[in-house]
């Protein structure tokens, strides 16, 4: 019986590891659909950003209450995972609470800390379910929050609640068994699961063992299954937040990337000697029409997005009823990358499927509404940059399709002919100086 459980466990673990490895490979491949970008500079500054923003949750605390609730879940996740290590070793070795004899009194303290955190996670998840489904918080009800994003968000919270209940049930039955069966190592009294003891006390030892085993298996299989689910879900931010903040921009937010391929052409047009030593820049597509025109960082951004909607809640265009939602830009980018990746994995047409990010997912009306105010970039707790994607799409529309709004085309023409975005005679540019001289003389 004991061996059977061990074999079953090793098998379960192997299947989970296999699926997870495949999923990670797939996601890595999808991110690499994006253009190459060298971000190996300033590693210490990048590490600092990751430590502050991802690990330290710095930007979450712009909204104190959700930040606190989120912190409880986050710390719970980090710390309770130490227990998962024991679960896995117990599962493989056929032991029970492997660490207990070595840690003694400290083990009891540790278990009680875990239980406190489990309660913290439980309470936070319930609060988040209420925030999401009952309270009138606009960003959870925006247009892009269709059935799947809503279900995904609720599923994550419900699964976490169930996992925590499993831990507490396991500990409760375990505590009773400690007095009845030598296999169950003594842990000392546990605060919260201790409260559940009276419920299980009347049960026979054999039924209790079934309850304990069921809860143990449910918890560990639940965690492994959840780990796989996370790779399909917005919840992937728990991992992606780290590389995403590490690689996030170190430049001032106002700076747009220079297109070096254009610089070469402009130098030639202006008769400036181009740098001969530089290899001719690869002139691909100007701007972005599809995910492969974006950088890998843009696509990684999309995988790091947990659809909290803080960007959208701060977006002046969205808040005044325009179609643009920065969160939707990120969701669309991920969906398109997934679509292309899945198609390629099946030997399908991939990028050549007749669809593209611009047009089939994101419309011109959306990108034209952006004021480039950087509110979305500032708001994102994990340093995602929706603005960069919007501006790359605009570059494609302007330079490849000449499809900008008519008034922008007039503005371009004014700059070309009058050297100002308005139609004024260039010779009048300095008239103000004469006016000022006259005014100050009178």
């Amino acid at each position, binding site marked *: 019986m004991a061996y059977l459980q061990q074999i079953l466990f090793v098998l379960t673990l192997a299947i989970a590891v296999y699926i997870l490895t495949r999923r990670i490979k797939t996601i890595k491949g999808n991110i690499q659909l994006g253009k190459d970008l060298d971000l190996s500079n300033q590693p210490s500054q990048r590490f600092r950003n990751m430590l502050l923003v991802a690990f330290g949750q710095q930007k979450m605390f712009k909204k104190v209450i959700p930040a606190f609730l989120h912190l409880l879940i986050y710390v719970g996740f980090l710390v309770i995972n130490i227990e998962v290590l024991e679960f896995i070793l117990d599962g493989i070795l056929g032991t029970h609470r492997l660490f207990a004899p070595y840690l003694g009194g400290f083990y009891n303290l540790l278990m009680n800390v875990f239980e406190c955190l489990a309660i913290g996670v439980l309470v936070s998840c319930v609060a988040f379910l209420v925030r999401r489904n009952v309270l009138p918080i606009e960003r959870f009800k925006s247009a892009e929050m269709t059935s799947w994003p809503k279900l995904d968000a609720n599923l994550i919270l419900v699964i976490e609640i169930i996992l925590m209940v499993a831990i507490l049930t396991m500990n409760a039955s375990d505590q009773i068994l400690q007095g009845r069966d030598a296999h169950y190592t003594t842990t000392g009294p546990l605060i919260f699961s201790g409260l559940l003891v009276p419920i299980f006390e009347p049960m026979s030892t054999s039924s209790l063992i079934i309850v304990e085993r069921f809860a143990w298996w449910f918890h560990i299989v639940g965690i492994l299954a959840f780990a796989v689910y996370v790779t399909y879900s917005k919840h992937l931010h728990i991992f992606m937040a780290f590389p995403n903040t590490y690689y996030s921009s170190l430049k*001032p*937010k*106002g*700076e747009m990337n*220079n*297109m070096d391929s*254009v*610089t070469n*052409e*402009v130098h030639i*047009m*202006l008769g*400036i000697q181009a740098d001969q030593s530089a290899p001719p820049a690869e002139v691909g597509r*100007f*701007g972005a029409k599809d995910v492969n025109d974006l950088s890998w960082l843009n696509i990684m951004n999309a995988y790091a997005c947990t659809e909290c909607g803080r960007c959208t809640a701060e977006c*002046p*265009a969205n*808040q*005044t*009823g*325009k179609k*643009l939602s920065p969160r939707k830009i990120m969701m669309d980018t991920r969906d398109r990358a997934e679509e292309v990746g899945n198609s390629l994995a099946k030997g399908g047409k991939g990028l050549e499927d007749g669809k593209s990010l611009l047009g089939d997912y994101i419309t011109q*009306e959306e990108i*034209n*509404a*952006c*004021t*480039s*105010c*950087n*509110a979305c970039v*500032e708001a994102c707790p994990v340093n995602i940059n929706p603005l960069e994607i919007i*501006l790359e799409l*605009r*570059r494609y*529309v*302007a*330079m490849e399709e000449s499809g900008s*709004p008519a*008034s*922008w085309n007039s*503005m*371009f023409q004014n*700059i*070309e002919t009058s*050297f*100002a*975005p*308005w139609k004024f005679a260039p*010779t009048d*540019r*300095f008239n*103000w*100086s004469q*006016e*000022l*001289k006259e*005014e*100050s*003389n009178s």
Partner: protein
Amino acid sequence: MSEIKIPTMADMAANGTTPEILFWVGCAGSFDDRYKNVTKAFIKILNKVGVSFAVLGPEETCTGDPARRAGNEFLFQMQAISNIQVMNGYNVKKVVTACPHCFNTIKNEYPALGGNYEVIHHSTFLQQLINDGKVSLKGGGEFKGKKITYHDSCYLGRANNIYEAPREVLEALDAELVEMKRCKTKGFCCGAGGAQMFKDAEQGKKEVNIERTEEALQTGADTIAVACPFCMTMMSDGVKNKEKEASVKVKDLAELIAEAENL
């Protein structure tokens, strides 16, 4: 008052001199009737403190910012590289401008194209003048007891982390500085950035500038201070739309300082 001086780089070069700073006026500062007043106020301040400065005058052209934000990278780079040629030709080292969009572009985006200058926005420049005691604001009286609210320009604030300089300038006026609900990093855009200034807004429920003006009016301030030509237009339009132009003024930092100094 002595004759106001507005030297151009060309004049100075002809005389064999180089000014300490180039005042980059910008298109709005040159052509927009309302913003020309800001240019004039800033020139008066420069004259008063006796800084060695010059303007490019007719040689100045659009930095290319609206073209770049609207997606036209070719046009942006044509403008940028031409401007850099002119500025490098005059051996420009330090640039001051009253436009956050020009400021952002010259400071952050010209270096990649060979234009490396120390670039300062006029809010920071004014703050330095006040800190150095070059602008004493003895007059001050007319702002006492008045409420001023400051509208953050996105291209100063989030884009370049300049939040305090304009506020310190306003505090020097001895007025009461009242903040809007959304300010500093959470400042709400006026609606004109990203080349929106040059097109109609997309279909929506409300204009961005109306939303922002309502917020500014809620503070009860009699002056809405701005530090950007686009914000100036959008907030002024918003105040007009709300029919408050008799009681609420939209003013640039330079105008307020010039007024306080009786320039």
